[in-house]
């Protein structure tokens, strides 16, 4: 009896230890779980509920309203314009930012004399909040109070006065604000490439361009993937810079998809149901785009 009961007691002790471990695990995870639940899952569920409900800003939930909210969201007269503008802005911003930040990273990696000064000066704009930076540029671009007001008057030019001017003025702000930050990411990626690979290429007589194309770019792929995903996601969700600089104008030419959601919810239409439907559409689109990006980079890595 005693020989049989010993393993049973052992099993019970092990089970007990496992249970204690499981409880401890749950308790360790609890703060984060509550955080995620409170700040992500509950708001997300609320947005999904709003997107399915007739929910005016001032009237509260008036009951289910499907699929009307989604059809109203897609048939909003600014929906396709805002999608088109957001994609155009995203492509331009991503291409310019990635090219510039890689160029800056190569510059500060190679330069020895001014390395510290250059790195710091490129990175400083990143320390400024985007809303603060936008307000700063709003004043700089102002045709009344800005430092270029006199020049603008004599040239008949306004930064934010034409659709093209407003787009490029905003892109300039974003490049100024983020180039240093992406440069830092690129720099970390560049420094992760072993020196002996470059040494071998040099011995083989590869030119600088060949080295860059066949060694630097392929080995920098994980960093490029990260920066592209960050840049595309950030640009697709662009809001503060346009809210402060253009408010969607002039002539409704710079309405991004998030600005449209804001307008529908709080500026005029005051309809949280349709705004919720737009938010869900954007969320799904973001998931699809991000998954596609990551798959594309992974496939290239496998090739």
């Amino acid at each position: 009896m005693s020989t049989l009961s010993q393993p049973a007691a052992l099993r019970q002790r092990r089970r007990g230890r496992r249970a204690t471990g499981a409880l401890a695990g749950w308790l360790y995870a609890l703060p984060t779980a509550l955080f995620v639940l409170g700040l992500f899952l509950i708001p997300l569920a609320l947005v999904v509920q709003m997107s399915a409900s007739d929910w005016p800003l001032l009237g509260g939930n008036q009951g289910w309203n499907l699929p009307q909210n989604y059809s109203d969201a897609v048939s909003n007269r600014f929906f396709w314009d805002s999608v088109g503008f957001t994609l155009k802005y995203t492509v331009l911003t991503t291409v310019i930012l990635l090219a510039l930040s890689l160029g800056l990273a190569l510059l500060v990696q190679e330069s020895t004399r001014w390395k510290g000064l250059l790195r710091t000066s490129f990175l400083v704009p990143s320390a400024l909040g985007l809303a603060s930076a936008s307000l700063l540029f709003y004043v700089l671009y102002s045709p009344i109070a800005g430092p270029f007001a006199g020049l603008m008057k004599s040239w008949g030019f306004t930064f934010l006065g034409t659709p093209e001017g407003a787009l490029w003025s905003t892109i300039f702000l974003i490049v100024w604000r983020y180039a240093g930050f992406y440069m830092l990411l690129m720099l970390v990626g560049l420094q992760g490439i072993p020196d002996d690979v470059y040494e071998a290429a040099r011995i083989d007589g590869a030119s600088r361009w060949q080295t860059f194309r066949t060694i630097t770019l392929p080995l920098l792929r994980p960093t490029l993937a990260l920066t592209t995903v960050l840049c595309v996601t950030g640009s697709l969700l662009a809001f503060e810079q346009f809210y402060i600089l253009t408010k969607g104008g002039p002539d409704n030419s710079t309405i991004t998809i998030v600005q449209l959601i804001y307008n529908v919810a709080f500026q005029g239409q005051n309809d949280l149901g349709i705004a919720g439907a737009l938010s869900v559409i954007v969320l799904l689109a973001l998931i699809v785009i991000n998954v596609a990006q990551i798959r594309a980079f992974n496939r290239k890595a496998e090739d």
Partner: protein
Amino acid sequence: MRRSIRRGTRVIALLAAGALTVGLAACSGGDDGDSTSLADAGVDGVDDGSTLTLWTRAPLEKQAKLLVEAYNDSHENQVELTVVPNDDYVAKVGAAAGSNGLPDLFAADIVYVPNWVQQGLFQDITANIDGFDFKDEINQGHLSAGTLDGKEHVLPFVLDLSMLFWNKDLATEAGLDAESGPANLEEYAEWAKAIQALNKPDTYGTATGLNCGGCLVFTWFPSIWADGDEVLSDDGTESLLAGDTAKAVYDTWRDLWESGAVLPSSKDEAGPTWTAGFTEGKVGLMFYPATLLSSTPFDVGVAGIPGPGGGGSTFVGGDGIGVSKDSTKAAQAWNFLSWMMSEDAQVGVLAKDNDVVSRSDLADNEYSQKDPRLITINEVAGNGDTPVAINFQQAFNAPNSPWLTLVRNAVLEGTDTVDADNDEITAVLQQ
């Protein structure tokens, strides 16, 4: 061990229940005043030392502060004022209304009042207003904007009228009769061009907010009213902004824009600085808010806004104020409103600050007698109008409103799309 797990679960459940209780207690909020209903409040309301909360939007901050300070100095009740940036006001009120967290009193741009009354954000104060022996003297535009099914919900908080202002120095320099002002819209354009022709550095004939729906509503609708036309149907669901008078107004401004007599930044002016050029003395004449008379640092002439055929009218804007649906101190809140309509507040606070009074029987007062321009403003207020439509914000004031599209097409682009753009406004009004 199972027992210890169960004990752990119970502890978590207890903690969660405790947190919920604390949260609910916090949500219910403190209530330091006795709750007396509006029906029992009478014409004076209750002044028992309660603390009241009041929200207003930033453009009316100066007047709101003066009123609140004067009330707090003379009453047991104390009002805590919160000033909210203009662009955030609708969102803040909407969020508070959804969570039953509105303040005791809140003001609303008068063009939004019909919608907000329909949403039930204000309490019915008909019986209390009926107690005033000067009820018929209160500005009728504001009262009717807050009336739904015969029940009144708001009183005028601060009236803001759009008036024609001209810089007398610039007008004299341009050889114009600075004392009389232009008689109709055509003369207005001639004045602007004459002042532009002075070729003074950084000085322009006129200015407006061509990317600001609210500014254009405020300053251009009166030109249409001055000629006896209407801008909206009586029920507020049809736009009448493609009539002959309206088209004459757009044509005049198109001509002005092409002649270069309009401050160039007007094209992109979205509202925050639309009056700055005139206040700095760099603009000859413009349609301008009467509330800024006291802060205009040079000699100006003031008149009603003329139409193409002359006359004079004004947009009776500003904010209405009422007791919120969530107030548990309605009788005390009414005490503030009741005092606000008294001579002490209207003359002793508003008129003293060169602001327009909300009661026509007080229009001619000791302060307005010192400045004939104030009498002009008060008189024009009686001839003005306040358009009423449920979807006013979406159709006119929103940054992407069809009204802005109409004006920009007609004035900046010169396209012949007024009729189609007007149909788009009607479509939004009928949503």
